[in-house]
């Protein structure tokens, strides 16, 4: 069970309060009808699934109920950072340098 820093509650809280919600930074297109079938397929189904640094969404569903974003290193299963849904992607190099 991980400890997750909720960027809204500003506390490290047990994973049991949270729910994973897929890859982050995949915005729903403003006008889906303008997308080709291939573009729409990619939006629906194509995900990066990296070995290493992954940008993902979590929801503090049993807490403040907010969706937020996280940077997690998938090999060691460690959170490098969490940030609010409306914040930009953090710079990876600043996180992976000597992350504990």
């Amino acid at each position, binding site marked *: *069970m991980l400890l997750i820093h909720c960027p*809204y*509650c*500003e506390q490290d*809280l*047990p994973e*049991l*309060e949270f729910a994973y919600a897929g890859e982050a930074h995949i915005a729903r297109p403003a006008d889906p009808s303008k997308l080709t079938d291939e573009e729409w397929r990619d939006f629906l189904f194509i995900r990066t699934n990296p070995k290493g640094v992954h940008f993902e969404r979590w929801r503090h*569903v*049993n*807490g*403040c*109920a*907010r969706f937020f974003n996280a940077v997690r290193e998938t090999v060691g299963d460690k959170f490098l950072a969490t940030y609010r849904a409306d914040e930009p992607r953090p710079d990876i190099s600043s996180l992976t340098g000597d992350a504990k």
Partner: protein
Amino acid sequence: MTATTDPGVTVTELPPPTRITLRVADPTGQPLPTRIGAIEGCALCLGPDEWLLEGDAAADLVAGLPGPYSAVEVSDREITYLLEGPAVLDLLATGCPRDLASMPVGAGARTVYDTAQVVLVREANDRFRLTVWRSFAPHVRALFDIAMREIAAGL
């Protein structure tokens, strides 16, 4: 052999107060706490735009707010238990993964107890209020009863 003793904690169901779930986009200038977990008057801040209002003052608070907002009465949605006694932290530790010893008196939080979502308010060092959706309440209560027997057994 340890004899069965007083569990050191009591669980009491409280009569339901008026409860309102309030959602406000911008609480600036309103009588609402803005730090999650903080309580001011009848309002407990559960999320950045969400408050649980409890008691007779709830309706007045809502009436005084400028729009837009959402106020939905949920008085009957949940059951509140008063948990009180020196063993109250042990009781909650049977199902709540949070470090409640570090929760300040006068604060609250939405969290989980076993598989049920609950709202906890710490009223005193050894006194909490636990609010849980109505249909989950018997499960939580049954677990409390088991845990109280366990604590009383002294092992």
